[in-house]
């Protein structure tokens, strides 16, 4: 049962949040320039990391804000949570 620190509302029970999956998947600026394979990569291919993983959560029952969570997918330990527009996102390499 996770305990997630919303960057605005503080620590709340997992049940207040909804999951957004892998973070920092940048939508291609010109989709029509992509071939089918590259488009599929963006659309479906995922890191599905075993270990440290950057993901998106939404405080859906609370302030409705989407934010970033760095979490170990094996121990479930949350290393840090950050607001969307913080540097973490930008530093993350985009596919």
């Amino acid at each position, binding site marked *: 049962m996770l305990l997630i620190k919303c960057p605005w509302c503080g620590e709340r029970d997992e*049940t*207040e949040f909804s999951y957004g999956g892998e973070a920092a998947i940048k939508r291609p600026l010109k989709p029509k320039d992509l071939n089918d394979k590259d488009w599929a990569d963006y659309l479906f291919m995922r890191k599905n990391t075993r270990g440290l993983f950057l993901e998106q959560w939404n405080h859906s029952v*609370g302030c409705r*804000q989407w934010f970033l969570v760095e979490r170990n997918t094996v121990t479930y330990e949350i290393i840090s949570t950050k607001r969307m527009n913080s540097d973490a996102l930008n530093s993350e390499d985009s596919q």
Partner: protein
Amino acid sequence: MLNENKNYALDDFINEEKSSLSSSQGLGINIRAEINFLNIRGSINDSDFIKHVEAVFQQALPLDFNTFSVGEHHIYWLAPDEWLVVTEHDLKPILQKISPEIDLYITNQTGGYTQLILQGDYARSLLSKGCTLDIGEKKFLIGQCAQTGLGKAGILLALTDSKPSFNIIVRRSFAEYVGLWLKQCGNEFGVNFTHKH
């Protein structure tokens, strides 16, 4: 005559409770009628926005997360760019004061919310049966509010005094569920529904 702020969602429910429920044992629930709700959106980086809101409402806009300000109205923080005004005042004059020049976006939510007031010694115990938030005396203080879950509904919870009194603001279509929930879980403590006019 039509009562403009009556929340029909709970109406039947309340009537039936009135007769059936035993007197309070340190716990009471009021359904608050005759109040208006306004949702405000805007950017806290926009000082004009903040100034204008405070001018319109004659009251400070709570910029601290999960707090509310009390004056002529209750103004609750909902999100970094969103607030909820709960007021007994007529909305027309307020809305007229709003300048189109300012990036302030306002929606009337009066029909969208129901407010309950939960009061008494057992209020905390009752709430924590269905709320995972830590609302202990030391943790959840007067002037604090939080959007959280109660049972399977989302609520806005605020502590207004040391009785303690909690304001529970819930979306209209979930109000009946929350009412039922409070009644069922409140059995343990003896809930008491009254309809305040």
